[in-house]
Protein backbone atom coordinates (compact mmCIF):
# COMPACT_ATOMS: atom_id res chain seq x y z
CA UNK A 1 0.00 0.00 0.00
CA UNK A 2 2.06 2.89 -1.32
CA UNK A 3 1.48 6.09 0.64
CA UNK A 4 3.15 8.60 -1.68
CA UNK A 5 3.88 7.42 -5.20
CA UNK A 6 5.67 9.09 -8.07
CA UNK A 7 5.93 8.30 -11.76
CA UNK A 8 8.19 7.79 -13.49
CA UNK A 9 10.99 6.56 -11.23
CA UNK A 10 13.62 7.34 -13.85
CA UNK A 11 13.48 9.92 -16.61
CA UNK A 12 16.23 10.41 -19.18
CA UNK A 13 15.68 13.12 -21.73
CA UNK A 14 17.50 15.62 -23.91
CA UNK A 15 18.00 19.31 -23.38
CA UNK A 16 15.13 21.41 -24.60
CA UNK A 17 12.46 18.78 -24.09
CA UNK A 18 9.38 19.19 -21.89
CA UNK A 19 8.57 16.54 -19.30
CA UNK A 20 6.16 15.89 -16.46
CA UNK A 21 6.42 14.03 -13.16
CA UNK A 22 3.30 12.84 -11.38
CA UNK A 23 2.68 12.37 -7.68
CA UNK A 24 -0.20 10.83 -5.80
CA UNK A 25 -0.82 10.31 -2.09
CA UNK A 26 -3.43 8.10 -0.46
CA UNK A 27 -2.90 9.35 3.09
CA UNK A 28 -5.77 11.85 3.09
CA UNK A 29 -3.33 14.74 3.52
CA UNK A 30 -4.25 18.25 2.45
CA UNK A 31 -0.76 19.56 1.65
CA UNK A 32 1.74 18.36 -0.95
CA UNK A 33 5.27 19.43 -1.80
CA UNK A 34 7.94 19.18 -4.47
CA UNK A 35 11.62 19.01 -3.46
CA UNK A 36 14.78 18.88 -5.56
CA UNK A 37 17.80 16.91 -4.33
CA UNK A 38 21.02 17.68 -6.12
CA UNK A 39 24.06 15.50 -6.65
CA UNK A 40 25.47 16.52 -3.25
CA UNK A 41 22.27 15.30 -1.57
CA UNK A 42 21.18 18.81 -0.69
CA UNK A 43 17.39 18.88 -0.53
CA UNK A 44 15.52 22.06 -1.30
CA UNK A 45 11.81 22.81 -1.34
CA UNK A 46 10.39 24.08 -4.61
CA UNK A 47 6.61 24.28 -4.24
CA UNK A 48 3.80 23.42 -1.87
CA UNK A 49 0.04 23.19 -2.36
CA UNK A 50 -2.59 23.19 0.35
CA UNK A 51 -6.06 22.12 -0.76
CA UNK A 52 -5.08 22.82 -4.36
CA UNK A 53 -3.84 26.32 -3.50
CA UNK A 54 -0.18 27.25 -4.07
CA UNK A 55 1.26 28.30 -0.71
CA UNK A 56 5.01 27.95 -1.19
CA UNK A 57 6.74 29.04 -4.35
CA UNK A 58 10.47 29.23 -3.91
CA UNK A 59 12.87 30.91 -6.30
CA UNK A 60 12.47 28.40 -9.08
CA UNK A 61 12.75 29.12 -12.82
CA UNK A 62 9.35 29.63 -14.36
CA UNK A 63 10.10 26.68 -16.62
CA UNK A 64 8.85 24.65 -13.65
CA UNK A 65 5.09 24.66 -13.25
CA UNK A 66 3.27 22.65 -10.61
CA UNK A 67 -0.35 21.66 -10.95
CA UNK A 68 -2.66 20.20 -8.35
CA UNK A 69 -5.87 18.82 -9.87
CA UNK A 70 -7.07 17.71 -6.45
CA UNK A 71 -5.76 17.26 -2.91
CA UNK A 72 -4.35 13.82 -3.65
CA UNK A 73 -2.33 14.75 -6.72
CA UNK A 74 0.49 17.16 -7.45
CA UNK A 75 2.24 17.14 -10.80
CA UNK A 76 5.37 18.94 -11.90
CA UNK A 77 5.83 20.04 -15.49
CA UNK A 78 9.24 21.21 -16.68
CA UNK A 79 9.67 23.08 -19.95
CA UNK A 80 12.85 23.47 -21.98
CA UNK A 81 14.91 21.14 -19.82
CA UNK A 82 18.49 22.15 -19.05
CA UNK A 83 21.50 20.14 -17.91
CA UNK A 84 21.25 21.76 -14.47
CA UNK A 85 17.78 20.30 -13.99
CA UNK A 86 19.32 16.87 -13.56
CA UNK A 87 18.51 15.83 -10.01
CA UNK A 88 16.22 13.64 -7.96
CA UNK A 89 12.78 15.18 -7.47
CA UNK A 90 10.80 14.17 -4.42
CA UNK A 91 7.13 14.62 -3.77
CA UNK A 92 5.91 14.75 -0.17
CA UNK A 93 2.63 15.24 1.67
CA UNK A 94 1.45 16.16 5.13
CA UNK A 95 -1.44 17.49 7.11
CA UNK A 96 -1.46 21.17 7.95
CA UNK A 97 -3.28 23.28 10.50
CA UNK A 98 -2.52 26.21 12.75
CA UNK A 99 -2.61 24.23 15.99
CA UNK A 100 0.18 21.70 15.58
CA UNK A 101 3.10 20.62 13.48
CA UNK A 102 3.19 17.61 11.20
CA UNK A 103 5.82 15.38 9.68
CA UNK A 104 6.06 14.97 5.93
CA UNK A 105 5.81 11.71 4.04
CA UNK A 106 8.06 11.40 1.03
CA UNK A 107 7.69 9.54 -2.22
CA UNK A 108 10.48 7.33 -3.63
CA UNK A 109 11.79 10.06 -5.92
CA UNK A 110 12.15 10.57 -9.66
CA UNK A 111 15.70 10.61 -10.97
CA UNK A 112 15.80 13.06 -13.88
CA UNK A 113 18.82 13.00 -16.17
CA UNK A 114 19.09 15.63 -18.87
CA UNK A 115 21.63 14.91 -21.61
Amino acid sequence: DTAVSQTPKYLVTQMGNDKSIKCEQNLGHDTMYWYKQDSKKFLKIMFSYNNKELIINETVPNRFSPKSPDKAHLNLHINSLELGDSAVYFCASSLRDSMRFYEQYFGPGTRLTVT
Partner: protein
Amino acid sequence: SQQGEEDPQALSIQEGENATMNCSYKTSINNLQWYRQNSGRGLVHLILIRSNEREKHSGRLRVTLDTSKKSSSLLITASRAADTASYFCATDRGGYNKLIFGAGTRLAVHP
Protein backbone atom coordinates in the same frame (compact mmCIF):
# COMPACT_ATOMS: atom_id res chain seq x y z
CA SER B 1 18.87 29.38 1.59
CA GLN B 2 20.21 26.48 3.62
CA GLN B 3 19.16 26.69 7.24
CA GLY B 4 20.63 23.66 8.93
CA GLU B 5 24.08 22.26 8.85
CA GLU B 6 24.91 18.81 10.12
CA ASP B 7 28.15 17.53 11.43
CA PRO B 8 29.91 15.35 10.96
CA GLN B 9 29.36 15.05 7.22
CA ALA B 10 30.20 11.37 7.49
CA LEU B 11 30.40 8.95 10.40
CA SER B 12 31.64 5.37 10.40
CA ILE B 13 31.08 3.12 13.43
CA GLN B 14 30.81 -0.52 14.42
CA GLU B 15 27.55 -2.27 15.22
CA GLY B 16 26.58 -1.80 18.84
CA GLU B 17 28.23 1.60 19.16
CA ASN B 18 26.30 4.82 19.61
CA ALA B 19 26.11 7.42 16.83
CA THR B 20 25.70 11.11 17.49
CA MET B 21 24.89 13.60 14.78
CA ASN B 22 24.60 17.33 15.28
CA CYS B 23 22.63 20.02 13.53
CA SER B 24 22.99 23.77 13.76
CA TYR B 25 20.66 26.37 12.34
CA LYS B 26 20.62 30.11 11.95
CA THR B 27 17.20 31.59 12.73
CA SER B 28 14.48 30.95 15.28
CA ILE B 29 12.25 27.96 14.60
CA ASN B 30 8.89 26.47 15.51
CA ASN B 31 10.07 22.90 15.32
CA LEU B 32 12.94 20.76 14.10
CA GLN B 33 12.60 17.38 12.44
CA TRP B 34 15.01 14.55 11.72
CA TYR B 35 14.69 12.35 8.66
CA ARG B 36 16.53 9.27 7.41
CA GLN B 37 17.26 8.51 3.78
CA ASN B 38 18.46 5.09 2.70
CA SER B 39 20.46 4.99 -0.51
CA GLY B 40 18.22 5.53 -3.54
CA ARG B 41 15.08 5.95 -1.46
CA GLY B 42 12.83 8.72 -0.19
CA LEU B 43 13.12 10.34 3.21
CA VAL B 44 11.52 8.81 6.25
CA HIS B 45 10.48 10.92 9.21
CA LEU B 46 12.11 10.00 12.54
CA ILE B 47 11.30 12.58 15.19
CA LEU B 48 9.74 16.05 15.43
CA ILE B 49 10.73 18.26 18.36
CA ARG B 50 8.98 21.53 19.08
CA SER B 51 10.88 24.67 20.00
CA ASN B 52 9.61 24.51 23.59
CA GLU B 53 10.84 20.94 24.04
CA ARG B 54 14.36 19.98 25.07
CA GLU B 55 14.46 16.24 24.52
CA LYS B 56 12.45 13.50 22.81
CA HIS B 57 12.86 9.77 22.58
CA SER B 58 11.67 7.22 20.08
CA GLY B 59 12.95 3.68 20.52
CA ARG B 60 16.74 3.82 20.12
CA LEU B 61 16.62 7.46 19.03
CA ARG B 62 17.12 10.44 21.28
CA VAL B 63 16.87 14.01 20.02
CA THR B 64 17.84 17.10 21.97
CA LEU B 65 17.20 20.71 21.10
CA ASP B 66 19.01 23.74 22.47
CA THR B 67 17.33 26.84 21.11
CA SER B 68 19.79 29.15 22.85
CA LYS B 69 22.62 27.58 20.86
CA LYS B 70 20.43 26.96 17.82
CA SER B 71 21.48 23.35 17.71
CA SER B 72 20.08 19.85 17.90
CA SER B 73 21.56 16.39 18.18
CA LEU B 74 20.37 12.96 17.17
CA LEU B 75 21.67 10.00 19.14
CA ILE B 76 21.21 6.46 17.86
CA THR B 77 22.03 3.94 20.56
CA ALA B 78 23.21 0.37 19.98
CA SER B 79 23.50 0.94 16.25
CA ARG B 80 22.77 -1.77 13.70
CA ALA B 81 23.94 -2.27 10.13
CA ALA B 82 20.39 -1.40 9.06
CA ASP B 83 20.89 2.12 10.48
CA THR B 84 23.31 2.82 7.62
CA ALA B 85 21.76 5.81 5.85
CA SER B 86 21.95 9.59 5.52
CA TYR B 87 20.35 11.58 8.30
CA PHE B 88 18.95 15.07 7.77
CA CYS B 89 17.72 17.71 10.11
CA ALA B 90 15.06 20.10 8.88
CA THR B 91 13.81 23.27 10.48
CA ASP B 92 10.38 24.80 10.25
CA ARG B 93 10.38 28.50 10.96
CA GLY B 94 6.65 28.76 11.09
CA GLY B 95 3.74 28.58 8.76
CA TYR B 96 3.12 26.44 5.71
CA ASN B 97 5.25 23.50 6.96
CA LYS B 98 8.14 24.91 4.95
CA LEU B 99 11.07 22.69 5.88
CA ILE B 100 14.63 23.83 5.31
CA PHE B 101 17.00 20.87 5.19
CA GLY B 102 20.62 20.60 6.17
CA ALA B 103 23.23 18.84 4.08
CA GLY B 104 22.95 15.58 6.03
CA THR B 105 25.25 13.16 7.81
CA ARG B 106 26.15 9.91 6.09
CA LEU B 107 26.24 7.17 8.68
CA ALA B 108 27.89 3.82 7.96
CA VAL B 109 27.44 1.06 10.54
CA HIS B 110 29.76 -1.89 10.00
CA PRO B 111 28.83 -5.40 11.16
